[in-house]
């Protein structure tokens, strides 16, 4: 383009009488034609109409224009329209610029003379910018029609299933040795609903039957490069020390000398160093926990199928995908020792533990016993670890606990009709259709006590007393309890911290991942091509997680369904031989699109055109002017500013 003579066409729209009514378009055109490099200026009743666009296209050929300026309405309405028109005439669409003389002028100023003067100024300024415009090419990225799902909980599984069903190849990476996450440990969803492990199994069953999905358990994502359309990801698969020859005979478990508390039972049961997480766990293979294994080799000796190899090493796999779904979920809030008597007595447990005890497939076959006596007085204390009830707790509401608590209370009511069940609570937040649970609980003689100041749980020997100020009667009441259930909330997933920096996402203060827009883009991450499913963005119910899983899958599908994605060329670009490598720009970018690279021995800034969203804040900061925003380069914006003066 350099050197070529600049030939600008200016087109002033009447917009019926909307502009022509207050702006003297004839005079404006006369004025425009006097501006430097303007070879033709015209006015027409509706520039945006078919004939209007035709007019421009013909002129481009007739006067071989290489810049086009339309003075009409707001670019938000018709910039695209005219860009396309210009493009159809064979001119680069970014050699077009628009002056807003309707919303910003004719509609705002009734005074004909002043409106006309202003229209002239606006056009003069835009023409000045147009003179400096450069052709830009949209960035075309070939889409790898594969997806990576990080996290094998219900949200991740649902997302993987949806994408696989839609015909895309899916890689599913789960940190733990088994799929299912916390959902698999929930014995009943909303009191009557489905069993968690069955829900998971039904999804997993279909998944593993599909040719286009690859599942990695006991694995994690260690690095990720690139952006939407093409991410290059490295996966580390940690050894399980047991291979598929395992026939689940369980001999190894008998001989294993190491016994530890079982995280899959939230500590209410124990497991060996070699173990099967739970009956329906997928994959159906025993696994050795290297943290606690003493390498004594007893299991190897007894294994009939020679499935155990204590020297198995971790391995790495590199994959390429077009989109990434982050679904690493949450972890239950773990009360401090001594917090509301937790850890001081077997009779003080968390809600997650209670659910395990109420599971007929759980360690107690679902029979609720303290020692061997059945509890008569059961006390639930809500909002443990939520609503800032403890220093370590978040100030947020964990959303699900109220419904889960009432479901559990109702289960106990079924099992122990004669028991006394107290719910010590703040607000009962059974929102939406869950309100049903609240009604049921009230009908079935579950007693609600409202607290403002945190209750006290007094543990003396095997006696437990819960003291709480019932604000309704304004007095302290004391309940001798056989079982205290701390209704613990949902906190940041332990694994999230590790992946945060690998997958470019950031967390809010409460420890959950920030969405691109909390209201209108709830499953999009800030960077293109990365989506968020389930409780990774904040506490959610199983059903909500399923919905979010599908939502994330849908967003991913919008990318994967295309052969290419196009990135706007209005992005930042570094003028390499002017960059001194001061790195000021790097800290500016909200999308981490700027990194550094070595060029003939110099470390300089590099903008990833796929990640850059084109805000231009790096260009404003760049001390040497090496960083420029295409379409808003210094020379372009300053030309417009200089044209402000007549």
């Amino acid at each position, binding site marked *: 383009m350099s050197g070529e003579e600049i030939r600008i066409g200016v087109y002033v729209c009447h917009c019926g009488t909307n502009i022509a009514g207050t702006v003297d378009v004839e005079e404006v055109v006369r004025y425009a034609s006097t501006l430097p490099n303007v070879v033709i200026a015209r006015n027409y009743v509706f520039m945006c109409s078919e004939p209007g666009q035709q007019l421009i296209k013909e002129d481009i050929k007739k006067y071989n224009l290489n810049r086009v300026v339309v003075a009409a309405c707001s670019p938000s309405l018709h910039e695209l329209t005219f860009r396309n028109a210009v493009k159809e005439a064979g001119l680069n669409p970014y050699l077009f610029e628009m002056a807003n003389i309707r919303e910003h002028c004719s509609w705002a100023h009734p005074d004909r003379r002043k409106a006309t003067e202003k229209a002239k100024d606006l056009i003069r300024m835009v023409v000045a910018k147009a003179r400096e415009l450069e052709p830009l090419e949209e960035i075309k990225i070939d889409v790898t029609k594969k997806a990576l799902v990080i996290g094998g909980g219900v949200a991740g599984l649902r997302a993987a299933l949806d994408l696989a069903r839609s015909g895309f190849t899916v890689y599913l990476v789960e940190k733990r040795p088994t799929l299912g996450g916390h959902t698999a440990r929930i014995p009943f969803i909303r009191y009557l609903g489905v069993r968690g492990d069955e829900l998971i199994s039904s999804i997993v069953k279909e998944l593993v039957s599909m040719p286009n999905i690859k599942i990695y358990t006991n694995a994690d994502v260690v690095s990720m490069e690139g952006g939407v359309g093409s991410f290059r990801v490295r996966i580390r698969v940690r050894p399980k020390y047991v291979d598929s020859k395992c026939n689940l005979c369980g001999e190894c478990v008998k001989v294993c000398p190491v016994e530890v508390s079982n995280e899959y039972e939230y500590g209410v049961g124990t497991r060996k160093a070699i173990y099967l997480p739970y009956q329906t766990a997928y994959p159906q293979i025993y696994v050795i926990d290297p943290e606690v294994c003493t390498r004594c080799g007893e299991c190897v000796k007894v294994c009939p199928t020679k499935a155990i190899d204590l020297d198995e090493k971790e391995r790495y796999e590199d994959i390429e995908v077009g989109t990434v779904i982050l679904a690493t979920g949450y972890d239950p809030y773990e009360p401090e020792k001594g917090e509301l008597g937790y850890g001081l007595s077997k009779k003080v447990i968390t809600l997650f533990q209670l659910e395990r005890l109420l599971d007929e497939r759980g360690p107690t076959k679902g029979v609720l016993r303290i020692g061997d006596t059945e509890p008569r007085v059961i006390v639930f204390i809500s909002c443990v670890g939520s609503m800032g009830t403890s220093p370590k707790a978040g100030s947020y509401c964990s959303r699900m606990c109220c419904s889960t608590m009432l479901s559990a209370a109702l289960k106990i009511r079924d099992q122990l009709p004669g028991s006394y069940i107290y719910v010590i609570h703040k607000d009962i937040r059974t929102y939406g259709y869950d309100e049903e649970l609240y009604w049921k609980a009230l009908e079935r003689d579950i007693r609600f006590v409202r607290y403002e100041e945190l209750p006290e749980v007094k543990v003396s020997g095997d006696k437990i007393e819960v003291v709480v100020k019932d604000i309704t009667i304004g007095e302290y009441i004391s309940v001798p309890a056989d079982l205290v259930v701390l209704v613990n909330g949902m906190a940041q997933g332990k694994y999230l911290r590790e992946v945060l920096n690998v997958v470019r996402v950031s967390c809010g203060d409460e420890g959950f991942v920030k969405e691109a827009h909390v209201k209108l883009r709830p499953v999009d991450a800030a960077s293109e091509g990365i989506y968020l499913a389930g409780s990774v963005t904040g506490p959610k119910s199983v059903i909500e997680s399923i919905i979010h899983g599908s939502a994330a899958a849908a967003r991913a599908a919008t990318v994967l369904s295309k052969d290419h994605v196009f990135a706007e060329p209005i992005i930042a670009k570094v003028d390499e031989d002017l960059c001194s490598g*001061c790195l000021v720009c*790097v800290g500016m970018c909200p999308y981490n699109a700027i990194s550094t690279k070595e060029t003939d021995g110099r470390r300089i800034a590099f903008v990833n055109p796929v990640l850059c969203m084109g805000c231009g804040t790096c260009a404003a900061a760049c001390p*040497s002017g090496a960083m420029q925003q295409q379409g808003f380069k210094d020379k372009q914006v300053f030309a417009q500013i200089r044209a402000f003066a007549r």
Partner: protein
Amino acid sequence: MSKKVRVALYWMASCGGCEEAQVDAITDELSVIDYLDIVFWPVAMDFKKEDVEKLPDQSIDVALINGGVRLSEHVEMAKLLRRKSKIVIAYGSCSSWGGIPGLANLYQKEEILSRVYSEVPTVAEEGRRPQRKYVTEEGVELELPEFLPMLLPLNAVIEVDYYIPGCPPSPETTLKALKTLLSGETPPRGSVLGASSRALCEECPLNKTKPDKVLVKEIKRVYNAKIDPEKCLLIQGIPCLGPVTRGGCEALCPRVAMPCIGCYGPLDRHIDYGGKALSFIASIIDARSEDEIKKIIDTGIPDPAGLVYKFTLPASRFRMNLRKWGGSR
């Protein structure tokens, strides 16, 4: 290089630093001086204005002029040398963009005079001002040049061919520049000679100590900051102008744990050096609330103009303070 190059050196509003640098440069081991035929150098040898006036026009090959334009005399001499010289070079920050004396443009002429001749405690006779004309007992009439309403860079009064930046320009810079010219090369008019086309960070040994993100929670001032000489000053919260200042000095200051104060001046893309410097410094402040930001700025940058315009105010888009015409109305 057969015949010697005829050189004129002149100083205007200058501190003498440039002269030192010139002496260092032309008396270096390569003894550039052998190639030079100095026709005018008031600071070192006894020349008079008439000596220059006598010379035929265009007879001087290169005129090196340092210091800013503050007196009517400077304008006369600048014009004279322009007439007599093929190439005129603005030597040093002052003549290139005004330099430190240029900060005087933050004040109006009258403010300066009254401060110097009335307000300062060391004034001998209250309110006594220098007279432009004065006749001695011997009846000799002396005339002082006029103190101009503002300080100007050389290019505001005459055409300047090249610039040699620095306060003062380092001997290396000066030599590089002179050698370029002696070699017969003719860079495009207006080029900066002897320095880099990129910012200082590139030459700074501390640059590699930068983390990826250059963001600071406070801005420190040199006089009371504890500075780690091994670490980039910027990330320590010292407003070092390295990123926005033309390289070429080999980062003399940062090497000794002093921030760059910008004496090599603007880069080619700058519209207003101060504005750009201000933009990047503000950008690295890592604070979100208005009060927080204000606090950081007020404690760290009490005098923004002094920081970002230390060498370039008279060449900036404003050139000087507008109070006289603005606020007073």
